[in-house]
């Protein structure tokens, strides 16, 4: 096995042999390798955030007809590093009456919960933390840990706005968990396994072609889970000062945003893994390095769409957002689950072409029917009357005063 074909396995075997050569038992060598692997993966993910923040500022700047960061380094690429230097030397302002443990645990947990997702995502055929046999359930569980961080931050801060914002944020996040759980069922169903590497290996046809509507729902829901625009009510700048992170300062505040950026990239990675075939591509099995390139291309496309949505869409109102989730996405995702499960059993599986066309036709039909239903509902919705009413106006009685004035002068 050459270094260039699969550098990860190459380094792993080299390190394992080195450790065993030093006289370490094989089991302990494995544990040390786990530590090294986890440390490398976690550090790489955190360092990636430096690049992601620069990328997002640059892209959003261009969309808003600005230059974006362009002073520190070529194209401003070291801007984030300068920002990190600044934020590390900021004072931690801890307000009186905070619950010390919860207050300090929240930012750590919010970054940690996103990092933990990386343990199960396969980056190439051979490079993955672990191909867990319940990886999808693990993703859901760890995702809900991030909501724990939000409520800890709000509750521990000893601030009215923080508590209110935390309740609202958690109401949003747990509501959007429901369609997320249901949509994640479909890749598991097609692949017959919950391991993410098994799901990727089962995608001889990308699952987005078998379940386009479900993929779309997953995309929308995962953006809401991250709390990005147009679903960034978690921050609630316009009504609750700053949201649950109001009492945080310095790096503790920064960590909520590190978690936000990393989470946005991670959901793009998850989307690419679950629906776009992950590391699959021509030659990815013989040369696992290529798989990483394919995965990064797919992820970048999805991540770019996430940034574009953030830059171009206005923010939802909270009641609109809850209605969208409970009254549209949840019933729709469950309907898609039922229809897909039924159709996949009824369609003959031997010619792959028939299966794909059948699924796509069914999805398009569902979208058309949904469009008609939404039109009907929209027409029946009672609207507030905005007809002009005659209101008393505080206007100076001009004509009479002029008459009076002229009267007194004459």
């Amino acid at each position, binding site marked *: 096995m050459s270094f260039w074909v699969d550098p990860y396995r190459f380094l792993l075997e080299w390190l394992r042999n080195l450790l065993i050569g030093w006289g370490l038992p094989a089991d302990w060598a494995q544990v040390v390798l786990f530590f090294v692997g986890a440390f490398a993966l976690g550090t790489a993910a955190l360092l990636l955030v430096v690049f992601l923040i620069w990328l997002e500022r640059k892209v959003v700047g261009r969309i808003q007809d600005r230059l974006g960061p362009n002073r520190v380094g070529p194209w401003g690429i070291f801007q984030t590093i300068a920002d990190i230097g600044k934020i590390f030397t900021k004072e931690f302002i801890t307000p009186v009456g905070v619950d010390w443990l919860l207050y300090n645990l929240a930012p750590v947990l919010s970054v*940690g919960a996103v990092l933990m997702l990386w*343990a199960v995502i396969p980056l190439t055929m051979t490079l993955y933390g672990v191909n867990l046999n319940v990886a999808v*359930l693990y993703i859901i569980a760890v995702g809900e840990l991030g909501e724990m961080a939000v409520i800890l931050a709000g509750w521990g801060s000893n601030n009215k706005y923080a508590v209110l914002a935390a309740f609202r944020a958690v109401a949003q996040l747990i509501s959007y968990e429901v369609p997320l759980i249901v949509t994640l069922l479909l890749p598991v*169903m097609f692949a017959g396994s919950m391991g993410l590497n098994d799901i990727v290996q089962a995608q001889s046809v990308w699952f987005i072609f078998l379940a386009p509507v479900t993929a779309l729902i997953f995309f929308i829901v995962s953006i809401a889970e991250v709390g990005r625009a147009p679903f960034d009510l978690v921050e609630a700048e316009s009504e609750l000062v700053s949201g649950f992170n109001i009492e945080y300062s310095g790096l503790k505040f920064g960590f909520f945003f590190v978690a936000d950026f990393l989470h946005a990239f991670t959901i793009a990675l998850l989307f690419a893994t679950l629906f776009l075939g992950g590391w699959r591509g021509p030659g990815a099995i013989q040369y696992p390095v290529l798989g990483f390139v394919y995965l990064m291309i797919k992820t970048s496309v999805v991540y770019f769409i996430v940034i574009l949505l953030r830059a171009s869409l206005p923010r939802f109102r909270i009641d609109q957002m809850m209605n969208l989730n409970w009254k549209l996405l949840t019933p729709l995702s469950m309907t898609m689950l039922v229809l897909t499960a039924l159709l996949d059993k009824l369609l003959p599986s031997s010619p792959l072409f028939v299966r794909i066309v059948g699924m796509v036709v069914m999805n398009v039909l569902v979208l058309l029917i949904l469009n008609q239903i939404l039109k009907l509902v929209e027409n029946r919705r009672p609207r507030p009357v905005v007809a002009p009413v005659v209101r008393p106006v505080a206007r100076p009685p001009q004509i009479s005063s002029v008459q009076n004035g002229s009267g007194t002068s004459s």
Partner: protein
Amino acid sequence: MLADWLYIGIFLIISLFLPSVALIVAGILGPKKPNPVKNSTYECGVETFGESLTQFKVQYYLYALVFLVFDVEAIFLYPWAVAYQVQTVFYVVEAIIFVLILLFALWYAWRKGALEWV
């Protein structure tokens, strides 16, 4: 199998350890000049008054209850989804009936007004 969970455990420790270290380093590097005004709770520029852990709407509980129904449902549906490829149509129809019961529950909550943001 057990090694998988060992890795998850190690990764869990590392992913909490890395941010903690960064926070500790930042705490050492940053200045420490607290004063009572700076440390007071933020309250839109006025003096803080009353309990900070305010009352909240019962609506949040309703959302949480509806969420709980669907969250528990996941435990039943995931094993079915893993075994989907080897099932006959009969088992698929059974699971569909289960999903329809859930949809009925959602419809009931909807009609009762549990899903209205007030």
